[in-house]
């Protein structure tokens, strides 16, 4: 019953925000902006740039809110806009190019366990090159499939797989270094 009420409340807030009701828009912003800034921070190292991107993406959210069909999660819809905005920014500013590498082995990293904090995880991700970081975030954090990543970035599925392989390999090295550092062996 409480969930239904919350859902109706969200519907009403969206309806008001579509009609340029500034209070409703601010409610949506206040509710989702902390999570969305975290999403942007996953892709963008600098927090100020991440915030700028989040504001631009929220602008797109409110201008395209009339196209939201209430079929899926509203948070997921906003999150997708944030991710697309970050990817566009990275590809425009950093000039990322993806090299297709067919000669890779699909190694398993299942045995690796981590007790890292969020800051440590963010540190490890930030250490990755932009291309690897994008694909690792999309696949490992957001849960997209390689086909979806290929269509989002304009690359083939195999390129996405190879880039993920290299990202994992590099991340494993970083994790082992961080573990050794935290254990005081190095």
């Amino acid at each position: 019953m409480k969930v239904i009420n919350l859902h109706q409340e969200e519907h009403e807030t969206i309806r008001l925000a579509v009609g340029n009701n500034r209070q409703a828009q601010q409610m949506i912003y206040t509710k989702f902006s902390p999570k969305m800034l975290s999403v942007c921070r996953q892709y963008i190292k600098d927090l100020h740039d991440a915030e700028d991107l989040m504001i631009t993406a929220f602008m797109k959210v409110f201008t395209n809110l009339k196209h939201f069909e209430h079929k899926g999660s509203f948070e997921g819809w906003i999150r997708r806009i944030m991710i697309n905005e970050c990817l566009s920014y990275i590809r425009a500013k950093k000039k990322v190019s993806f090299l297709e590498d067919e000669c890779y082995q699909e190694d398993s990293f299942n045995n690796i366990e981590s007790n890292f904090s969020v800051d440590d995880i963010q540190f490890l991700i930030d250490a990755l090159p932009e291309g690897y970081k994008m694909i690792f975030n999309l696949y490992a954090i957001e849960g997209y499939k390689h086909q979806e990543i290929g269509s989002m970035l304009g690359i083939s599925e195999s390129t996405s797989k190879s880039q993920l392989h290299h990202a994992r390999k590099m991340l494993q090295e970083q994790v082992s270094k961080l573990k050794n550092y935290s254990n005081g062996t190095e």
Partner: protein
Amino acid sequence: MGRNKMEKDFSEKLNQREISPSANAWDRLDAMLTVAEEKKPKRNFGWLYIAASIAGFLLIGTIYLSATEELIDSERNDVVFENNEQNPTENTENRNEVSSATDSSAVAETSNPIVKDSDSNPKPIRQIQNIRKTNVSQLAENNINQNNNQNQPIINQKMNSVSTVVLANNQNSDELLAMVQTKSNPETSKTSVKVNAKNLLSQVDGEPDQSFRDKVINSVSKNYRSAKVAIANRNNLEEENH
């Protein structure tokens, strides 16, 4: 190959994370939204300008078409005008037959009906076209002036006899009418009618050949001449007064 344990752990921890934006972030977004809302009505005005310009072109087109139709109608009415020009001659003939007891009285009275007809003829022309009216009335006035100049001495000399004839007509109108019906004098009527008809018809026949530009130039030159004469008269009067 799916996500491994480490990646799932990373995903959970990162999805739970929240980073508070800066205090002025909403103000910036609010300003951007305000600017975007202000831009929207301008698009509607753009459509309005396009619609207004289309309506303007349509209006100009209709006015232009109606103007050309009026010109065509006026050209068609020239034929009617020529017929109307012939009627005064017939009227003058009838009137001459009725009123002409002598040659002198016929001349005097033929000039007067023409004056009446020339005043009455421009009425239908006014209904057709103002430019035509002015030119035709100008031509008629010129003819009348010519006729009056030619006939003026005769009229002046024979005015007394005409008055006596008119008195006689009043006294014995029946007799005179019978006389007129039996004695028609074709020479006097022909002479007076010939002069008027030829001049009028020759000048009016040439008029349809004139272009609109020539007509406008004629009317402007006539007005200029009349204004020039009026100014000259005024200057003369002022000089005389001084």
